[in-house]
């Protein structure tokens, strides 16, 4: 099964009822699959006139109680940021998939991870955070997609799935958890249903002209983000226990890094990997208690150094943090990573 199709099928089994899409490469298999399959599952697929419209349709649908999602790729996500800020402000549960490609601008259509900032820093206006799940395999893509809907409901928040052109287009066997497909959105006291003349009207809004009121709202959101930061941090640690050199990589890059870690072990060097599965909240705690053996960290990304900022913040200067990146749609080879690691291990860090 192709990665994008795995995400789409997992969405149906995650209980997705509404999908709004707009064509953009390399995520087209998601809307195509759901146009075909979601109506068969009793859901709705609608093609929007733009990514801007898609995210606003998502907003309306989820506000009316739909378990809804959208997907796009990097420049499309940029267009959606106004709506994502609105979704965060109004606390609407929903899922947004980004199958990343190279940027900036139109960039290219080959795999990249250059939306790390866009996925973790709040590309839209205002103080907000979005849970960002970053799978590295198709199995994990499917599992995270199903979990994303549950997290969205639990915290009343949008959730990102951060994929890339490589994960989206590759093929791998996937075992789906079909037991979740019957989960339903419970009637929430904020969903717009019409007041049936038996309660006062409900309003979903973000505008608060009284600064004191807006501050209270924002601080309440921050409290929620704090709870998420404490409860939902996920990462995988691989051969890290006695590592001298610790890699940090996410998504498809982490798969390549694993090859390099194994290769280094075969050559007699102790290397390990921290793979963030949540980009936000970032697993800083994985770096707070570095193994005593660790002499340096290297962050590997398919961009020019974005997660690097978070790694440096987490390492807090205790050991040097190096970087290796490829960008524009170029994919690093394990040999390049091993060579860079050997340079660092031999003390020639430049």
């Amino acid at each position, binding site marked *: 099964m192709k990665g994008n199709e795995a995400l789409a099928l997992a969405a149906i089994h995650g209980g997705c009822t509404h999908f709004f899409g707009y064509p953009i490469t390399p995520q087209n298999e998601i809307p195509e699959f759901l146009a075909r399959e979601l109506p068969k599952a009793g859901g709705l697929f609608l093609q929007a006139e733009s990514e801007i419209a898609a995210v606003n349709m998502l907003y309306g649908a989820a506000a009316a109680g739909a378990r809804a999602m959208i997907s796009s790729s990097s420049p499309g996500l940029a267009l959606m940021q106004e709506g994502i800020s609105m979704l965060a402000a109004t606390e609407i549960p929903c899922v947004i998939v980004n199958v990343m490609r190279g940027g900036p601008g139109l960039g290219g259509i080959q795999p990249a991870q250059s939306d790390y900032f866009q996925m973790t820093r709040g590309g839209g206006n205002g103080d907000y955070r979005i849970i960002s799940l970053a799978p590295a395999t198709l199995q994990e893509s499917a599992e995270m997609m199903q979990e994303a809907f549950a997290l969205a409901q639990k915290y009343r928040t949008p959730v990102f799935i951060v994929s890339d052109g490589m994960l989206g287009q590759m093929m791998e066997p996937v075992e789906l958890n079909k037991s979740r497909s019957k989960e339903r959105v419970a009637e929430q006291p904020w969903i*717009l249903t019409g007041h049936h003349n038996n309660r006062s009207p409900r309003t979903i809004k973000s505008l608060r002209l009284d600064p004191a009121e807006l501050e209270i709202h924002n601080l309440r959101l921050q409290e929620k983000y704090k709870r998420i930061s404490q409860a939902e941090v996920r990462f995988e640690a691989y051969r890290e226990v006695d590592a001298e050199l610790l890699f940090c990589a996410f998504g498809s890059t982490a798969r390549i890094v694993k090859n390099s870690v194994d290769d280094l072990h075969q050559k007699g060097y102790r290397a390990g990997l921290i793979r963030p599965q949540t980009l936000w909240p970032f697993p800083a705690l994985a770096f707070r208690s570095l193994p005593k053996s660790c002499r340096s960290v290297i962050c590997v990304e398919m961009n020019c150094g974005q997660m690097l900022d978070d790694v440096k913040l987490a390492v807090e200067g205790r050991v040097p943090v190096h970087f290796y990146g490829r960008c524009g749609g170029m994919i690093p080879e394990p040999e390049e990573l091993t060579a860079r690691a050997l340079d660092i291990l031999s003390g020639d860090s430049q």
Partner: protein
Amino acid sequence: MSVIFSKTSGLTETATHYCPGCTHGIAHRLVAEVLEELGLLGETIGCASVGCSILSYNYLNVDMIECSHGRAPAVATGIKRTVPEKTVFTYQGDGDLASIGTAEIVHAAHRGENITVIFVNNAIYGMTGGQMAPTTLAGQKTTTAPEGRQPEFSGLPLKMSEMLAQVPSASYVERVSLHHPKYIRKAKKAVLRAFTCQMEHRGFSLVELLSTCPTGWGLDPIDSLEWLEANMIPYYPLGVFRAPEEV
């Protein structure tokens, strides 16, 4: 003594923030009265858009959602496609609908979305302080057209109703005016037809309400009504631009 008139239950008790002489109050009342008369207040979801009417959810007695600038028709689409049995409407000004939201309104019509659009056209950006809108008349002075709108520089005002009536899947499009009681009665009939259109699953319906903005226009309320009649109606002719056959 019998009651011959009472305030519609479609409006809340909250006093509006609108300027003296602004016709938003009339437009709100028409929507509220029609929804009450159709028995739809409890089954309606409204979409407020950016502009003076962003706070309309404080005044209309229905569930409402606030939309980003221009996006109300897309939000309404998401709602209607989720709960098609509910009545869904947008309430948008001309800065919202005719400028930043042209894509959303055209494509809601293009898909034949079964929603109702209340389009308040006062030929200016009211809330932000009287800037030029796509609907600002030639020669009309605004804070961003201090010498008056110059068509050779900014083009001629956009006629949204005429434009949307050309969209193949649009169902009902009418322009009415709020400057005089006689016209307000006609306007109410148009609003009623638009919501009826939605109840009968006929698809996209829009009523354009020519409105005043005394503050933005720099005129007193009475002069504003006269200015509307003398200047807006000749350029924005009233009438039905599109209707399903039986309506």
